[in-house]
């Protein structure tokens, strides 16, 4: 669940826009470069964008008795890196703000920062670290997507806490209140997102493993090892 239209004071809207816009600009530059060099990755780019589209529309009930939705950004973050994912996330957030009154235009900067930037950065870092440690590929993808999703909502809570500090206790107290809603609700959804992302990677390895090697996501050896173990 994104921050709703109008629910951040003007100054905070501007701050989050100021942080998000450079990343999106860099993402567009990287996107153009990648597409210019390799037109054959376009379908995979479309799949990564569509995955965000699907998952961020699935409002699921959670243990807290309220609903939220996954983000779907882990897949794109692992495939194309956080900057390009920020562009894809911004497109989805813009669609939902314009046509679904979900999120908003004034809060777009804050929502892009949490869902399009921090979540994907967390997923990307966990993926890289996990692969370096030689853990099982699917376990690493699961962890990356799960914690990327979860980090998105921790950041959403931070954004709201900074804008609305509690009279007693300041932003830390209000962070606890917002995190109790967003971060707790998100735990089971993040786990589902992790499992679905690992599953879709299995299919990508089945049909298009050469692209993974060329994008330096996996080495040829790693692909052979994964296929040999047949998840």
């Amino acid at each position: 669940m994104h921050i709703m239209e109008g629910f951040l004071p003007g100054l905070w809207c501007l701050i989050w826009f100021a942080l998000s816009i450079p990343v999106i600009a860099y993402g567009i530059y990287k996107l153009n470069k990648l597409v210019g060099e390799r037109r054959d990755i376009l379908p995979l780019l479309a799949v990564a964008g569509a995955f965000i589209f699907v998952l961020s529309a699935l409002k699921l009930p959670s243990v807290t008795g309220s609903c939220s939705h996954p983000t779907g950004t882990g897949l794109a973050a692992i495939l194309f890196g956080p900057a390009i994912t920020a562009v894809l996330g911004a497109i989805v957030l813009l669609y939902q703000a314009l046509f679904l009154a979900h999120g908003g235009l004034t809060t777009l900067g804050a929502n892009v920062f949490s869902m399009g930037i921090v979540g994907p950065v967390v997923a990307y870092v966990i993926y890289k670290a996990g692969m370096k440690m030689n853990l099982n590929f699917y376990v690493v993808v699961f962890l990356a997507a799960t914690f990327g999703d979860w980090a998105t909502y921790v950041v959403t809570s931070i954004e709201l806490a900074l804008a609305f500090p509690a009279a007693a206790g300041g932003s830390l107290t209000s962070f606890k209140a917002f995190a109790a809603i967003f971060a707790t609700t998100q735990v089971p959804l993040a786990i589902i997102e992790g499992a679905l992302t690992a599953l879709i990677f299995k299919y990508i390895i089945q049909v298009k493993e050469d692209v993974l090697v060329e994008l330096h996501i996996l080495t040829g050896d790693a692909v052979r090892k994964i296929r040999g173990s047949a998840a």
Partner: protein
Amino acid sequence: MKGELIALAIILVFTAQFLYISSSTDAEFGGADGEAEGVIGELTGGTYEPIAEPLWEPPSGEIESLLFGLQIAFGALIIGYFFGYYQRSKV
């Protein structure tokens, strides 16, 4: 098959959790963003006025679920199409 089975098991646990919560409590399963709005109201003593309204809102819950449904259908179509395309270009 292992991957599918693990994903299925996670979804089943999730479903069981939902059935338990929905039958044992009177939870409303509203949006988490709506609850955050409530917290903002408490923190500011109800003085906060949103600085903007959505330009357009779906006129009803039905229309909203139509648009969310279209979003999912469109995304799933793209994913399915390109996996089929890759599968075919492999053989």
